């Protein structure tokens, strides 16, 4: 199945129906393994048991940026390639990305209180992630404010691409500015600085959360396609009622009862 085949919503729905149960199963298994490894990981010599917060904070922080990346590719799909499912993908990803960003901020804050002595610091990393969270909320509001999905899609795509400038700012904020937040310790030149006892649970949890995102995203895309079918059929229904009242009821054109795939 190619990307062109997936442009057909009916084929996409058939694909999601096939793969979602398996994907959800693998996600649950990996989450269980990751949680077990996190529970069994030793205490850090400086952070103590508080290091366990990192196993959920870091995957959420990675995904907060990754989801915006997915939305940026989808935005290109909307504006450049006009792929029929691109805006569906972007709209479905926004609330999930917002949830991951919220969790990254709150778990980071809960780690910061015992380790830094403060829940919040207006440093470059924390502030840029807060801006990312607000941009997710802004995008969701935009989608709701414009009734026509295709018009909303173009406006949201432009906003998404403009907002993508924040992703490298978040990533390199710890290198460009003097921040309280520690620099990268996994994806860095020279390899990870983490001990394997912490690196493995972290990587398993990161893969598990990534699969969780893919599962939720596919399910949310399926919902969005169905929502658009509802909208199309409702418009059809409304035009039928209007046609009937104009012609005084009676026979209606059978063809007007039908509508193509949303």
């Amino acid at each position, binding site marked *: 199945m190619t990307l062109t085949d997936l442009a057909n919503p009916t084929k996409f729905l058939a694909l999601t129906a096939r793969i979602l149960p398996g994907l959800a199963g693998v996600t649950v298994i990996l989450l269980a393994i990751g949680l077990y490894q996190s529970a069994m990981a030793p205490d850090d010599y400086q952070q103590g048991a508080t290091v366990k917060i990192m196993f959920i904070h870091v995957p959420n922080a990675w995904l907060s940026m990754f989801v915006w990346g997915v939305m940026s590719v989808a935005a290109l799909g909307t504006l450049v390639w006009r792929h029929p499912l691109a805006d569906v993908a972007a709209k479905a990803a926004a609330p999930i990305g917002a949830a991951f960003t919220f969790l990254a901020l709150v778990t980071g804050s809960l780690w910061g209180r015992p380790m830094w002595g403060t829940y919040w610091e207006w440093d470059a990393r924390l502030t840029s992630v807060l801006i990312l969270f607000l941009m997710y909320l802004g995008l969701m509001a935009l989608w709701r404010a414009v009734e026509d999905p295709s018009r909303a899609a173009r406006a949201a795509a432009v906003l998404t691409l403009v907002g993508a400038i924040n992703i490298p700012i978040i990533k390199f904020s710890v290198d460009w500015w003097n921040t309280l937040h520690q620099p990268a310790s996994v994806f860095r030149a020279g390899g990870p600085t983490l001990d394997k006892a912490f690196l493995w649970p972290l990587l398993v949890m990161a893969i598990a959360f990534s699969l969780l995102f893919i599962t939720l995203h596919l399910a949310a895309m399926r919902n969005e396609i169905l929502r658009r079918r509802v909208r199309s059929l409702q418009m059809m229904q409304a035009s039928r009622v209007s046609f009937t009242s104009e012609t005084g009821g009676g026979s209606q054109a059978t063809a007007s009862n039908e509508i*193509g795939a949303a």
Partner: protein
Amino acid sequence: MALGPYASFIVTSYALVAAVVLLLIVWIIADYRRQQARLREIEASGVTRRSGRSAADTR
């Protein structure tokens, strides 16, 4: 597994992540059921797709 003096911060973090993820899952499942029900309702009123297939059919 001893969580030390900051156990409340660790437990709150994990509980919050579990709650938000569960909320997302429940919201997505509820939304799916709501859309399916609305499609069946509209189709029951006689409005159908050009293909003749049920709009609620996802297979």
